[in-house]
């Protein structure tokens, strides 16, 4: 069916990346998508275009060029100060209808998913959520979008043959952060949004940032440090909390610690608890029973620390350490204290080029 793609009527071109920002801070997933988008655009002979919506966001263009964008489109408007579905959807739909991008990629964050669904519905196009792999089919030049389904037990490659743009969301840290080149320049375009505050059906009244780890939802955590019966008690979980802090993660558990009241019930991973897919899952003193495994086997990297070399968790583990957790965990906390953390913050001035 690829013969009569709509490109014969309107020419759709370019790979667009929606740059998610809040209070002028870019979510690194936007940079990661620029890295991947660069590859796709080069494959297609397209330009890589970054789109930024917000208030007082002009300064962000430099960083976006540095990560590979050829063009940056900015919509700066007081109505866009806080993210809200209505004005962001209206703004992005307006741009899509004016410029006809071939591909539009967004982060699979709460914001990105909320917005992508609204935009795709409005422009009546296909949207593939949570892609883990993107590519260009050499024959049809269609975007191949691969994603897990059925709780990660199945992978599916999805195409959007006729409608444009081909839209996908991608979770944070699926793609690598491209290097920043502050000498790169590009074309900067300012667009406007004609929406009054009265039109917007929502108002943000308050934002309460998480202050306590117990508030943080483990399903969205990138790093999870989970403890099992091997921790021996609530004090063991104190040690685990220290490890989680050193790794920038959240604490979770297998079922026995929950049953014994060492941790709260909302921390349980597994068949009767939660299913998580973090970037890093550290299983400490957990044997790896199948009822536990179903809740965490989709994690990118699994570390297991267990004194029993025969524990089934080692079959799942990317990196296994056989040893006494009460010795290994403190050593690990100490080793991590000496590690410098990588950061995505590089700030580039806007270098403008004649459009």
């Amino acid at each position: 069916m690829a013969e009569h793609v709509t490109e014969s009527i309107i020419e759709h071109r370019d790979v667009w990346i929606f740059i998610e920002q809040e209070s002028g801070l870019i979510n690194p997933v936007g940079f990661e998508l620029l890295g991947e988008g660069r590859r796709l655009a080069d494959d297609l002979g397209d330009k890589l275009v970054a789109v930024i919506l917000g208030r007082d966001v002009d300064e962000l263009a430099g960083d976006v060029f540095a990560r590979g964008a050829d063009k940056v489109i900015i919509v700066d408007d007081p109505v866009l100060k806080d993210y809200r579905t209505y004005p962001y959807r209206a703004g992005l739909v307006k741009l899509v209808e004016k410029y006809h991008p071939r591909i539009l990629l967004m982060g699979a964050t709460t914001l990105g998913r909320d917005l992508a669904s609204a935009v795709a519905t409005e422009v009546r196009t296909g949207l593939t959520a949570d892609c883990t792999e993107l590519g260009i089919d050499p024959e049809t030049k269609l975007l191949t979008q691969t994603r897990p389904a059925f709780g990660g037990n199945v992978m599916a490659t999805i195409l959007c043959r006729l409608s444009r743009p081909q839209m996908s969301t991608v979770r944070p840290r699926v793609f690598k952060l491209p290097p920043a080149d502050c000498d790169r320049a590009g074309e900067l375009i300012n667009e406007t949004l004609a929406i009054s505050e009265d039109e917007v059906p929502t108002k943000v009244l308050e934002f309460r940032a998480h202050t306590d780890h117990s508030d943080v939802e483990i399903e969205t955590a990138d790093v999870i440090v989970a403890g099992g019966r091997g921790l021996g008690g609530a004090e063991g979980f104190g040690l685990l909390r220290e490890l989680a802090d050193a790794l920038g993660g959240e604490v979770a558990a297998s079922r026995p610690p929950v049953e014994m009241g060492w941790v709260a019930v909302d921390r349980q991973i597994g068949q009767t608890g939660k299913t998580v897919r973090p970037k890093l899952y550290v299983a400490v003193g957990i044997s790896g029973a199948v009822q536990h495994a179903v809740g965490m086997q989709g994690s990118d990297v699994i570390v297991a620390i267990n004194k029993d070399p025969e524990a089934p968790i080692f079959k799942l583990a990317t990196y296994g350490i056989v040893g006494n957790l009460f010795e290994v965990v403190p050593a690990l906390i100490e080793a991590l204290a000496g590690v410098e953390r990588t950061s995505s913050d590089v700030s580039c001035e806007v270098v403008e080029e004649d459009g």
Partner: protein
Amino acid sequence: MNIVVCVKQVPDTTQVRIHAETNTLIREGIPSIVNPYDIHAVEAAVAVKESAGGRVTAITMGPPQAREALKEAISLGADDAVLISDRAFAGSDTLATGYILSEAIRKLHSESPVDLIICGKQSIDGDTAQVGPGIAQRLGFTQLTYVIKITEIDAPGRRIVVERQLERGHQVVEGRLPALLTVVKEMNEARYAPLPNLIKAAKYEPRLFDLAGLGLDRSQIGLKGSPTTVRRIFAPTPRAGGAIIADQSQTPAEAARLLVEKLQADRLL
């Protein structure tokens, strides 16, 4: 408050597998359940009814056996239920599904205006989180996703205040009614169905909406109305687990150092 709650019958995804030779889904013998997030949506709808008055109508799109999911919604406190079913709906992706469900709600709305639609945040088989927002956009309802709490409903003032669960904290938002909410599991605890509800559910026959009854545009439904197509499905590469990087022959400090090196190489630190 006239509330519509959307539920979906899904396979128990922990049991879905791919057939090694044919690369097709093995669905035989896999039990169907109500999407777990939707149970919380029903509970939220019933709680609104209990505090603000009104009616709760559960709707589902699916094959005839999806009426089981509606019976479960009735047992949990929904007043009515509608099965949206037609062979022509098979193969609908999220865009087409959003169209069909929004037209079904439009029909209910024409009988009695709908104030609130509640959906689970996503379904566990597709995990897309796209259908709720799709309905909101098509009906022009205020879209409020990832809701963990309804703080206030001011029916005469046509306002609702909710708390949304975002990555870095909770956002309190005021929105205009009518609104569509998608809810997270932490919103509430599902209650056990009381006996009278179970009895009602056992005998309950939902209304049926089909293609003709909804007057749908055939070009917007089923495979034909779906912009996305599945090119292929396959089993995920099995975990390359089993690598022991340190055992008892190393000191804990050595083991820790080896692990830190690996995690650094993986850009996890």
